[in-house]
Structures are given as C-alpha cells and as structure tokens.
C-alpha cells in the first residue's frame, strides 16, 4: 500500500512528463480497443448476416456440390425424400436448386447462377415473397451488387438461357421484381433468384435441390446429403477477420512500443536523478527489493492512469460509435461486411487490453528498476551516479 501511495504521489508530482507518457499510453490503449472492437463488430455482424441471409444453422449439400467449382454444379442435385419434403413444408428446411445460366443484359452475355428458392420460405432473410407466380411471367429477384454490375433494375426484363435436364437449351424473358440489399456477397454477386417450383418446371425435374438450408438448432445427419456446419461455411469470413486482426497488431504494437519506450526512458532517468531518494528509502528501512518494487509500481502505474485517461475520452467516443457506427460505404471484399459497422466491445477485449498494457508497462518499468538492487546505498545517499 505504501508503494502504491508513493508511486501515485511521485507520478502526479512528476507533472507534464507523467501526463505525456500517460497520453501516449492511453492512445495505445484506446486504439487497441477501438480497432479490435471494430473487427469484433464486423465479425459479429458478418456472422449474423451470413447466417440470416445465407446459411442459417447449416446446409446440407448434394455430395458432389462444390460452391467454388462451377463445373460440378450442373449435376449436383438430387430429389428430396418424402421426409425431407415434409421438413420443407414444416419450415425446417429451405431447398435451393442451383444451375448455371446466361443472361443478356444490354445485349451482353453474362453467366449467372440461377437459384430456385421457395417464395414462401421464412428461414432466410432473402425477400422471396415477390417471386410468387401469378401467370406465366418469370419473376426474379437480384441483389444490389448484381443489379449494379448488370445495370438491371426493378421492372427490367432480361433474356435468360439455360439447359434443362436433357441438356437442351431453353430461354425466357424474366422480369426483375425486386432488388434486395444485403451485406452478404455470397448470395448476391452473379446470382438470380426465381421461385423453386418454377425452377423445377424449367429444368423438367421435380423436388430436386442442390442444397438444403436448415433452421434446426442441432442439425442431424441426413442420408445422401453432406452436412456443412456454420464453422465450415463461415471459414472464409473467419480467415479474413484473422488476417485483419494480424494487420492491426502491427499498428497497435507500434503505438504500444512508443508508449513503453517513453516509460522506459522515464524510468531510466528517474533512477539516475533520484539516487538520493533511493538512498533515503533504504536508510528509512526499506530493503533494496522493496525500492525496486516502488519504482516498478510507479512505472507500471502509468498504465493505470492511462486506463483512466483513456476511459475519460474513450468511453464517450466508443458510446458515440456504438450509436452511429462507422460507415465504410459499399465495399466488396468477397466476404460479408456491412456498410456501417457497429463496434463490439466485450469485457474480455477490455480486460485483455488492460492486462496487456499493464503487464508490458510493468515489465519495462522493472527492467531499469533492477539496477537499484545493485546500488550501494551509501553512494546513493550522496546522489552519486552509479
């Protein structure tokens, strides 16, 4: 307690030098929480959006289906058993029938993935209700990115050509009935959604699906289908988050290093300038290791002050960000990212950042303070540099 009290007094007594160190350290503290909060916010939003819009609680794939291999898609479909059809009816599964097709917007040919999805599904957020067929018109919905790349808008008609089950080309005019906005590029780029029943009809197949999206909390294995859990389906996002975190560590590391260097420098200076004080402590009855402790606590206490100062301006800043988010505009990095990211500050993030700053500040404070243990107290009392 004496050491803490003395450290506090000495720190405050050092005035501007303390506050400069504390400012830099608090900046490292706040920046670390800010950056990791943004990444965690992106991660949470990305995972939630991907689950809401694309994968729910997992997907059952046709054994040959590979979303990265366009050549496997044509034959990667199979009929649904009566049991699966029942689960679809009960709202536990959403079948998607996926085939390659070509569209001709403004006279250009563009390959697309044509996806049949029940218009009455409620598991995914994709707004499929407008796909409900009323007549011969082939209704389609597309995502915002697809609309931008093809220059299609609501009401536009575009020719689509596909191969049916026999490999015979067929073509129709489809009408864009809705353009939906979502942050999940995996369900948007190069994709056109039509009603599931209409898709079966066009392909000449009944009750076929390439994959099934499940709403079950604990999905079980289904014979003839390969289950892909959320960890597998979110692996790309996880890798992107990891790489961004890795990049952030460099920035945070540099900031922390500057702050720690300042503390180290202050400690070295203190120990040289305060020899007489060190000698006095020993004369008053402290052991050398207790004096080392005082100086270490004093240096380490910079981090406590930095946490307080950081909290003073960081908390309002974080609360503001939590309300308005940070807008990145419409960016396409291949994985789910919202236009506006709301940071997520977990207790774990704050405590681990605090621990990192406190421990590293204490270590750099201890390193120069170790010299005290080798000091001759009689020389120290004279204020002689040792």
């Amino acid at each position: 307690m004496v050491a803490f009290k003395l450290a506090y007094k000495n720190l405050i007594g050092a005035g501007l030098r303390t506050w400069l160190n504390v400012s830099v350290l608090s900046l490292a503290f706040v920046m670390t929480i800010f950056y990791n909060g943004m990444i965690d916010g992106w991660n949470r939003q990305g995972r939630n959006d991907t689950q809401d819009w694309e994968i729910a609680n997992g997907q059952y794939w046709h054994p040959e289906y590979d979303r990265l291999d366009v050549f496997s898609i044509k034959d990667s479909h199979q009929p649904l058993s009566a049991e699966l059809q029942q689960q679809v009816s009960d709202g536990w599964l959403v079948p998607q029938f996926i085939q390659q097709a070509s569209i001709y917007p403004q006279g250009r040919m563009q390959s697309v993935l044509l996806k049949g999805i029940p218009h009455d599904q409620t598991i995914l957020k994709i707004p499929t209700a407008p796909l409900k067929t009323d007549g011969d018109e082939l209704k389609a919905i597309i995502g915002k990115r697809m609309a931008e790349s093809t220059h299609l808008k609501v009401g536009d008609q575009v020719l689509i050509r596909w191969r049916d089950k026999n490999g015979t080309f067929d073509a129709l005019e489809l009408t864009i009935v809705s353009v939906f906005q979502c942050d999940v590029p995996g369900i948007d780029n190069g994709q056109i959604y039509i009603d599931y029943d209409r898709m079966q009809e066009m392909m000449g197949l009944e009750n076929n699906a390439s994959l099934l999206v499940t709403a079950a909390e604990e999905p079980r294995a289904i014979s003839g289908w390969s289950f892909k859990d959320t960890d597998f389906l979110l692996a790309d996002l996880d890798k992107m988050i990891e790489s961004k975190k890795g990049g952030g560590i460099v920035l945070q590391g540099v900031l922390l290093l500057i702050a720690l260097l300042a503390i180290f420098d202050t400690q070295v200076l203190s120990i040289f300038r305060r020899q007489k004080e060190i000698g006095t402590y020993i004369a008053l009855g402290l052991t050398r290791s207790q004096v080392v402790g005082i100086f270490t606590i004093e240096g380490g206490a910079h981090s406590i002050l930095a946490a307080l100062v950081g909290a003073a301006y960081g908390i309002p800043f974080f609360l503001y960000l939590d309300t308005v988010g940070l807008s990145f505009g419409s960016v396409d990095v291949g994985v789910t990212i919202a236009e506006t990211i709301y940071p997520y500050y977990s207790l774990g993030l704050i405590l681990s950042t605090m621990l990192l700053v406190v421990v590293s500040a204490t270590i750099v404070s201890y390193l120069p303070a170790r010299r005290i243990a080798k000091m001759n107290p009689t020389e120290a009392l004279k204020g002689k540099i040792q």
Partner: protein
Amino acid sequence: MDNAIIQLNGLTKRFPVGSGYFTALSDIDLSFSKGEFAGLVGPSGSGKTTLLNIIGSLDVPSVGEATVLNHSIAGLNQKQAANLRNHHIGFIFQTYNLLPVYTVYENVEFALLLQKMSATERRKAVMQALEWVGLTDKEKSRPSMLSGGECQRVAIARSMVKKPEIVLADEPTANLDSKNSHHILQTMQKLNDELGVTFIFSTHDEKVMQYLKRKISLADGRVVADELAILSQ
C-alpha cells in the same frame, strides 16, 4: 563498556580504488552507551561518514566487528539490516533528504508506515514528533515550502517519530545558518535529555562541538582522540 549499545572492535573499512584499496577506517575500537550525545569530529575524508554508515547498517566493515544493539552488522542480511534501521536507528542528513512529493506530515509518517502501525497510533506519534520540533502548524506543507532549518527539523522529527535507540546525524548543520543550527542542536539535545536517545554526529562544525558531551576525533581513518567535552551551553 557493559551497557554499550554500539561496540566497534578492530574495525577497518577499505574501498577498492583502481587495482588497490583506499583505507577509510583503520582499526577502530569504540563503544557507545545508551543516551550518549557524541560526535565524530574531523576534517573531510577522515572517515566520519563511513563510520556512521557502518553503525547505521548501510555498509559493512572490511575487517573487524561492528555490533549494534546486539546485532553484528556484517552478519545481517538485507532484510535484517532494513529492519534494524526501520525500528531502531534514525538518520539525519546534511541535505535533509525529505521526500519532495510528500507533505511534512507524510514525510514523518513514512517510517511508521513500514512498521504497520494503525492510523490512529501513527497520527498520534507524528503529531508528537512534530510538536518536539515545533512544526505542528506545517504538517500540510511540502518540503519545497519550508526553510532549510524547518526542513532539518522535519528530518529530526522523521528520525525520532519511531522512537529509535540511536540517531545518526551526518553533518546536520552544514547547510544551516548559525541561528537555525543552534535551534536544531538544542532540539536534539532536548530529545536526548528527555527520551534518552543516543545521538551520534559526524561534524566539523564548531557550533555542533559546543553541544557534544563526547568528542571523538578522527584523522585519516583513525581515532586520534576520544574525550568527554566540557559543555559551554
């Protein structure tokens, strides 16, 4: 001496200098009894401060024996030596050595904090010590707000607050004017008389010598005279 609280036998202290040694103290035989008001007198470099440092367990003899309050200084480890200083020995320095960030009260209280006394007991002891030196009205001042004489009185209070058996004062008046020097010395003399604390000074100040009951003259690290003084006060 049977009631000696400090016993020095054949004490020699050498410091390494280059490839050889400098002998600061040579074959010192001295003893001090409880309640003495003694001074180590001599010119600079005569070994006064070195001797005080050894008695204060801040240093150890190279040869010989130094026994303070039945503790052999050479045999103490760091913790035992710190404990001896904290409980039984008070220091007064030429340059006061007050902690600049602490108030007068806190400076005096510091030694008691290490003794884990209760806050009430500490308060009582600190105020009593400040009363001895006449500084109760300055308890909230910082050292930078005090005169040299006042600073040294705070240092005396700090050394006395734990009621030690021995107070070692290294050139306590060297930075003070005549009036303050006398004031300080009278204060210490009073504490010696009333509390029976043993005071050992190192000094070459004539003003201090006037107050000493025993004067030990050192020259080149040797005791050249050890005499009871005839007090002029």
